[in-house]
Every structure is written in C-alpha cells, then in structure tokens.
C-alpha cells in the first residue's frame, strides 16, 4: 500500500508540464513560441536538452528543424513521443534517453546549429553545469548558439523580494496541485555562461526579470575550471538530531532529504585514496561518513539517486550505471585520483550494471560491503569481503527502526479515521496497533512462516490469545464487543505482518501479498457483517 502512495506522490509527466506552466504563470508557452519563431530555421539541427514532455520539441520541429530531444526520464520521453506522433512530426525528431553528461559520447562534434536548455540548468548540479559548458562548444557548428530559458534571481532588491514572495506561494501551490518541486532559480544566468567564456546576451525577460531567455555563443578560448570538491565530516549536532528524527518518522514519505551530489573528501585523502560511491539520501551519506570519518581518508562520490537510499534507488532505476558514469565524468575524478578503482555499495548491484561502467570509463568496479561500518575492515583486508560483509541481516535495532518508519505512516491512514469516526476507541486501537507492531518486530525471526502473509497466521493466533486473556481478566464486555475486537485484531495482525514485509530485506516486496491481503480483508468484512446478522445480535 505504501508503494501505491509513494507512486502517487511521484511526479508524472503531465503533472510536470502543468507544474512548469504554473510556476512560470503561463509565460513558458509564450517563450517557447518565441524561440521556435525567432531561432529556428528550416533544416537546422537542434538539440533540445531536457525536452520534458516535448512541448518545445514539437514547436521547433513544426518550424522545420531536425531535433534531437534528450531527457533522462523514460516517462517524459514516452509522453513526448506520443505528442510528436500525434503532430505527425516523427520524421524530424529523434529521442534519446540520456543523462546530460553522456551527450558528448552520443553526438558527433559540430552536430548542432542550436542547443536549447529550457528550464534545465537550474535543475543541474554545478558539476554537471560545468561539464555542459565545456561540452557545448564541441557540439556546436562554428556559428552555433545556446539558448537558455530559466528562472534566475532578479538583480534589483524590489523585484527580488516580489519574486521570492510569489515563488514561495507558487511552490506550495504547485506541489499541492501537481506534486512537482522545481529547483531554486539560477543565481545569475549571465555570469554562469560569461565565466565559461561565452558571449552572453539577454534576449527577453518576464515576471520582473525572474524568468529570462539568454543567448550564448562560445568564446574562442576554452576556459579551464577549478576542481569542485566538498568536505564531509561526522559532526553530531542539534540539527543532525532533528534530521535523524525527521528521517526516522517520515522515512517512507517523500520528498526525501538529499545531499548535493558530487565529489567529497573525508579526512585528508590523496591521489591513492579509495573512492567510495554512494547514493544521495541524506541519511545514507551521513551514515557512510559516520562509519569512516576519523578511521580513514577517502573520496566519497555521491551520485544523484533522487534522494533515495542505495538499495531502493538501485531497484527502482534511480541508481544506475549511467548515473555513476555521469558522476565520474562530471566530478572529473581522473584529475583527483591516480588509480581507477571505484568501490560501489554491494546493494547497488541490483540496478548498477558494473560492466557498463568498466566499459565506459575504464574504471575497475568492486563491490564493497553491505554495511558502511564494514568499510574500514574491508579496506584493511585489501578489498576481500568476508561472508559476513556480504550478507544482509535484519537485527532487532533495524527491525524497530523500520517499524517506527512504517507505523508513523500507517498510523495516519488507520488512526485518523478512527479518531474522527470512532473516537472512544482511539486509544485502544492505537495501543493494539503499536503493540502488535512491536511484538512482530521483536519476535520476527521466531515467528514461523517464510513471508509476512504466512507469519500473519501465527501472529493473529498469538494476538487473539492475548486478547482472550485480557477479556477473561479485564472488565466484562458484551459478546458483540468481544467479537468486533476479535475481527479487528485479526485484521490488524494480517495488515501488520503483510505490510512490514516491504521493509524486511529478507523477503520479497510487500506487493507479493496484495491479492491475498485483499481477499482476507473481504472475508473479514463479511464475517464482521454477516455473523452478527445471522446470529440475530443487535
């Protein structure tokens, strides 16, 4: 059930398109029309970087250009492809599902007369911006141009305040209506391109110069950038405590707190130090740093995995070989270390194709231990993993942690209706839910059954036995009440065991139990309504 909720919270292409119109107050349409009308000539080769749902792609193709539309999201590309086919422009558009950092591998030098980045740059890490700024000149024909449409922070104090007020309100509204969050605006679009040696010109600006179109032409001398390396420390504070609590109780509810992707130094690493690759969920990075800070000097390469932990992001396609290759290239790792060995978390192996990375970068990929705590030991042993380092476990502390994370979400779904419609039983139901959850989490390894659904049978029996003892010793109640509680407790037990399967690393996902769960719910519902009716209870 949690997965359906999370899926719903994910942005889908149509939402994204609505979001972009909302956050630009509809100006984006006018801007797209202007670009298609003024910049595109029939026969031009155009690169639409970050093509999204293909609105701009369609307009450029309709203006007669040949378009290469690049986007990292398969969902966006599907949507765009449908749109282009409906407009019968498929002869003019080629779609590429690509991370932006791969464009120099896919396209030949001097392929494009025009490169368009519409609402793209603000969403990119500085490393990736820098990489693109260096790559564009190679891909452009001698007189080629880059056109950048993006939000940028207005210069004047008045406009900036006005923009911040409006953007704040729009951000909330856009999230509520479309569940899309747009990145912060660029601090200074012109400066980004000018510093990279481009001749940059403002074409037009909208909404108090918070939404701008710039045109940039590469300069004749390529500019060398200095290396961007961050630092990470293990430094517990009130802020990290707050984050720990937030990430405990809201673990499964997006948006997930992220660490900025990129290359970081832990300790005093040098050219020979190990490179550890990881995902960009805030807790993931902090736990990794906690495990190694003070024990060793290493480089940590944080890959953009949409703020999702290593295993889940790899399973869901957010942590992929392309993402790692892109991170290696944009961090310019070859300028930092002299060796070519990357240590990837073992649990990324279900989504990151190691051979693709070896082929594309010439790097040696090794699969590190499952747990970050084992990294110092793993490095001491020259990268030899013991069996213990390879196996996932689910110890008591982890079980309690996951129970808390899951219950804090389900508590909302189950307890809020109880609070509103069945107020007198709020505390008993809360107690039952927490009690069953705790019992299940603590005794999980000893409850018979291979998966959560099977385990829910012994769990139900134990819970019913517990309730029997309570009703014998406790205050007397009517048969109807006892019956209702019996049915309710079985329901809660099945629900707990079947749903907590999703956070146990030793079982298949909780979706495996969906159908059975539904049938059990229907049967329990029938029992609840039919038994009192047949027995003539009132």
């Amino acid at each position, binding site marked *: 059930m949690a997965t*359906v909720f999370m899926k719903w919270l994910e942005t889908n292409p149509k939402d994204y398109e609505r979001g972009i119109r909302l956050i630009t107050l509809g100006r984006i349409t006018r801007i797209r029309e202007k670009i298609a009308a003024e910049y595109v000539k029939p026969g031009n080769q155009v690169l639409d970087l970050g093509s999204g749902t293909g609105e701009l792609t369609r307009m450029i193709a309709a203006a007669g250009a040949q378009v290469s539309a690049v986007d990292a999201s398969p969902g966006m590309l599907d949507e765009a492809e449908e749109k282009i086919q409906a407009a019968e422009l498929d002869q003019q558009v080629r779609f590429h599902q690509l991370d932006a950092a791969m464009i120099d591998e896919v396209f030949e030098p001097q392929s494009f007369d025009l490169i368009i980045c519409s609402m793209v740059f603000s969403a990119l890490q500085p490393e990736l911006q820098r990489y693109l700024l260096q790559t564009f000149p190679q891909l452009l024909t001698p007189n080629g141009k880059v056109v950048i449409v993006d939000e940028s922070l207005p210069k004047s104090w008045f406009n900036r305040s006005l923009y911040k007020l409006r953007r704040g309100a729009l951000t909330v509204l856009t999230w509520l209506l479309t569940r899309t969050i747009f990145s912060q605006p660029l601090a200074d679009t012109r400066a980004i391109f000018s510093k990279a040696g481009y001749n940059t010109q403002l074409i037009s600006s909208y909404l108090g110069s918070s939404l701008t179109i710039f045109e940039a032409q590469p300069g004749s001398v390529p500019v060398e950038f200095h290396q961007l390396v961050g630092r990470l420390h293990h430094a517990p504070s009130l802020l990290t405590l707050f984050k720990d609590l937030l990430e405990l109780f809201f673990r499964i509810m997006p948006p997930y707190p992220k660490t900025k992707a990129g290359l970081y130094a832990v300790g005093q690493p040098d050219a020979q130090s190990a490179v550890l690759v990881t995902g960009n969920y805030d807790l993931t990075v902090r736990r990794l740093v906690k495990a190694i800070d003070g024990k060793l000097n290493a480089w940590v390469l944080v890959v953009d995995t949409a703020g999702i932990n290593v295993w889940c992001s790899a399973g869901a396609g957010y942590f992929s070989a392309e993402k790692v290759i892109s991170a290696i290239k944009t961090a310019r790792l070859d300028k930092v270390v002299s060796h070519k060995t990357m240590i990837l978390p*073992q649990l990324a192996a279900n*989504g990151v194709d190691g051979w693709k990375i070896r082929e594309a970068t010439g790097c040696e990929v090794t699969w590190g231990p499952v747990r970050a705590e084992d990294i110092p030991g793993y490095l001491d042993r020259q990268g030899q993993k013991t069996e213990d380092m*390879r*196996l996932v476990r689910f110890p008591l502390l982890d079980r309690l942690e996951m129970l808390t994370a899951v219950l804090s979400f389900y508590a909302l779904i189950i307890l809020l209706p109880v609070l509103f419609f069945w107020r007198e039983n709020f505390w008993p139901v809360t107690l039952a839910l927490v009690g069953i959850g705790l019992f299940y989490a603590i005794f999980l390894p000893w409850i018979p059954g291979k998966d959560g659904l099977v385990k829910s049978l012994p769990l139900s029996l134990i819970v019913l036995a517990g309730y029997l003892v309570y009703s014998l010793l406790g205050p007397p109640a009517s048969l109807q009440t006892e019956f209702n509680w019996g049915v309710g407790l079985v329901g809660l037990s099945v629900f707990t065991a079947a749903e907590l399967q999703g956070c146990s690393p*030793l079982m298949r996902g909780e979706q495996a139990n969906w159908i059975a769960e539904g049938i059990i719910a229907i049967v329990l519902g029938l029992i609840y309504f039919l038994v009192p009716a047949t027995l003539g209870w009132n």
Partner: protein
Amino acid sequence: MEDQITNPSIRDLIMEHLELALTLKKLRIYFDPEKCTGVWECLQVCPVGCWEADQALGKVIYVHAERCIACGACGLQCPEGAIELRV
C-alpha cells in the same frame, strides 16, 4: 489544453500493483552452468548467500534457492548471461 491533462488514477496504480503482486512471487533464478566461467560476480553481490563457489570446476553452484529475494543482482552482474531472473 489544460482539460486534456489527467493524472494516472489511483485505480491505475492499484492495477499496476496487482500485476506486480502476480509476478513477484513467481520470479525465480534460471542458471545455466554451461555458460558459467567462474567470474564470481554473482557470489560477490548476492545479499542472501544463494551462491557458492565450486573451486574444482571453476564455476558457481546455485545452492540456496530458498533464500532468493528476487533482487536480480546476480543476473545483472553476470557477464556471461548465465543467470536470469524471470517468471
């Protein structure tokens, strides 16, 4: 334009997950020992210890099928295409 835009309904999402429910339990590993050349990647990445090395033969053996959680890591990392996770 605006009114043509619709979200995937909760119903679509539930149907998608029911399909997942039907396939998830049936997924299993198909291992072809003929193709195995002893790269040991599967052994390195399996988080539940399904695989063991047969040093004499220079191949892995799929020992603990009952532990498999269908994560698919072994299949993805096998360069010889000897391992497949499917229904």
